[in-house]
């Protein structure tokens, strides 16, 4: 069946099977930043933004995105033009194997869009669906708070 939606700000039309998952559809079309982890909505490696909110794409049947807006990590920044969040993750050493990082960044992006000045507690709550098994969370939270501060400064200036 045909599904029309916006993928990383570009109108997109895809032919998908009724039982295909969004994570599989994205990865099959080259959006490999969306990671496949547990497949049961536990780990958050496959998080994408659906109409601006983080969701586990392993639990979204592809036809469900009809008419909606999907943002993957490829739509956030690139190696040449990284997003402030990506820069701060790198600076803080908040990345080790990197498997959870796209999901972490997308969850953070949704948080900062709604709350530009989050507390440490707000960040931890926003990341409650993103598991990391390498670095732990201290540097991740530090990176998000630094990015939030830089984004506020940029907006003010």
């Amino acid at each position: 069946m045909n599904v029309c939606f916006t993928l990383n700000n570009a109108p997109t039309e895809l032919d998908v099977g009724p039982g295909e998952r969004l994570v599989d559809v994205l990865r099959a079309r080259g959006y490999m930043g969306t990671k496949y982890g547990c497949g049961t909505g536990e780990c958050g490696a496959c998080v994408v933004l659906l109409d601006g909110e983080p969701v586990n794409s392993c639990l979204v049947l592809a036809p469900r995105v009809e008419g909606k807006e999907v943002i993957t990590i490829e739509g956030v920044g690139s190696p040449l033009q990284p997003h402030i969040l990506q820069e701060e993750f790198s600076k803080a050493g908040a990345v080790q194997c990197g498997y959870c990082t796209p999901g972490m960044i997308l969850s953070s992006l949704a948080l900062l869009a709604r709350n530009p000045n989050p507390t440490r507690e707000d960040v931890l709550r926003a990341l409650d669906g993103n598991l990391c098994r390498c670095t732990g969370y201290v540097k991740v939270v530090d990176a998000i708070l630094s990015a939030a501060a830089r984004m506020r400064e940029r907006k003010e200036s």
Partner: protein
Amino acid sequence: MAKLLPRLEYYHRPRTIEGAKKLLRQGKRTTMILGGGVSLGMIPRKQITDVIATEKLNLDYFIAGEELIQLGAGLSLGSAARQLEPHDDGAARLIMEAISRTATTPLRNLMTIGGVLAGVGPWSDLPVALLALHTTLVIDGDQKIELERFLLEGPAKVLSRSGLVTEVQVQRTGEISGSFMKFGRNTTDLAMASAAVSRRHSPGYDAEIRVAVGGLVARPKRLADVEEFFLSERQGEVDRSSLLDLVSKTVTPRPDPRAEKEYRLNLVTQLIADCWEDLLEEGQR
């Protein structure tokens, strides 16, 4: 990678409730209604051939009137919490508290109000809070059923003779205060035990107390005896030992590999008492 629904042939997107009901009537045993789809991750339905998706039914609305909060069944828990946030009344706060303790942020953005109720289980959080409030469900857009009756009869029975949950209505008249507490192994665990207590003052009426618990039996349960107990002892500190006796007589917990029945009975008793003391403190403030 295993497919969630390996035999799925049709993804229906009806635009009206009547259309969804028609598809349901025509459907076989291998047809299911799809709310947020979160339960698919836990229980892959290998035999499902047709899903009836609810996203085009325009049920993702939120209305906060003077007397009622109306939550469309297609509203995600995340969206419901965001829209409830500015409403500073006891009913809204109690619902928000239960939502904030449910699963994780990305899952709450998928889980729908209707899906949570149609798929209610022992560990469901939101239905516990709704049961401690005056909550009515609208089925198929035009039939109403009290949440308590829905839970007593069971969603499978109620929905088999009709169709789908389309709206949740929560009364917010009077002065309501409420508290919800949950215990699990970590912040996102399924409830080993949960409790919600609400108290409502309406001018000219005695205070009304409602107590509901989750995590122990097949579906969240209202504890009328405990409500009576609080009505008789409402000003003082809770006698937790008497409360435990009462709860033990009323509830027979189902097995849970995480903890013994006695432990969970004790746990839920402490949660009920803590909720009650929360309300008393709020009243004093």
